[in-house]
């Protein structure tokens, strides 16, 4: 069961990262520059989570998946670049707990 949740977590996190790349592409040149550091951080933390899952599993809970859904909703609804950067940073911190 926990392995299924781990896999769901990685799939959802991949979707969130894709959403961030979509937002990056839609942004103007200045906002692309501003968004990039937090996206890179999120990308690095997702790699770490994937490596942990690959080696021994990360033991995701249903509450974790709910938290990730909430972060995704925040990213979807981000009204401006600053809000998007804050939500992306939250996403990176969330992923860092699975290492």
């Amino acid at each position, binding site marked *: 069961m926990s392995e299924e949740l781990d*896999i769901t977590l*990685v*799939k959802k996190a*991949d979707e969130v*990262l*894709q959403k961030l*790349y*979509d937002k*990056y*592409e*839609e942004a*103007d*040149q*200045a906002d*692309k*520059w*501003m968004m990039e550091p937090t996206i890179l951080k999120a*990308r*690095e933390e997702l*790699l*770490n989570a*994937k*490596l942990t*899952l*690959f*080696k021994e599993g990360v033991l995701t809970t249903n509450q974790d998946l709910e938290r990730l859904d909430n972060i995704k909703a925040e990213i979807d609804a981000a009204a401006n670049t600053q809000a998007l950067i804050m939500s992306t940073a939250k996403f990176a911190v969330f992923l860092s707990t699975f290492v």
Partner: protein
Amino acid sequence: MKRTYIFMLLSLLLFTGCSQEKADALLTVAKSYESKSLAAIDAYEELFKDSVYVEKKSNDEIFNQTSSVIKKYGKDKVTFQNLVDEISSRNDKLLDKKIEMEFNKLRVIYEKIRKTYESLPQGSITAVKYVSCAQDIVAKSMIQLTNFSTIIDKTPLYSDNIKKDFASYKNMIVKKEDDKAKILLEKIANNINSYDEKYENALKLTLLAVKEGKVLHELLGSYKDITISDILSVTQSGFDFISTINKTDINKIKEGLTAFETQFSSEEYWQRVGNIPVFEIESCK
């Protein structure tokens, strides 16, 4: 390769005593399991490294972004370190190094299996004791290899570069830049196909390794009673499998791995070994 291997085993049969000949043959199988496992692990490492590759920006892109951000948000938003990070390649390999470090930790268990048997031909009492004990380590590593294939199958490692290109592609469609979008789609398709090929190769190598692990595991289980001809017989069937695997359909490969996975998750012995931490098995209590 196959002839050399059989010749080596036959030579052992002719020129050595019974127990030493068995020990040498066992060591040969252990080495073969190590090399096949490490080949599979190398293939997964490459998939991980490919997954984090992102193309660097051109100087034109860097100029467009920095000039825009300075005009919109002020000079403080572009630091010298920001510029160095964009241009310098010094930090490009940081994620690759992280991946290498993690995979080197994984490799230890497979190298340990072979090292355990290296002293066996010399008749080490410790090594003989470890014959049965290390059977569990082989089992644990086989479970681990099968898990790798399952995880990669369920969470594919398509690269960040493909994901970024896909975002650009969608944006081009919205902007009605169809010609540019078609060219980018071609690049995305090539990169997806290239990943799929490497992924299928990783699964094939995994199945080869797990089958060799099974041979080693069975030899260890009946080490006292087994004869050199038994060892030759099981290694021969291994060679027959290697010669056909490259032509085997990927779905058959997956079926083979799933069969192992089902066995490992349903049988009491494999469940028990799967739940023991590697360091506990290694201590051979």
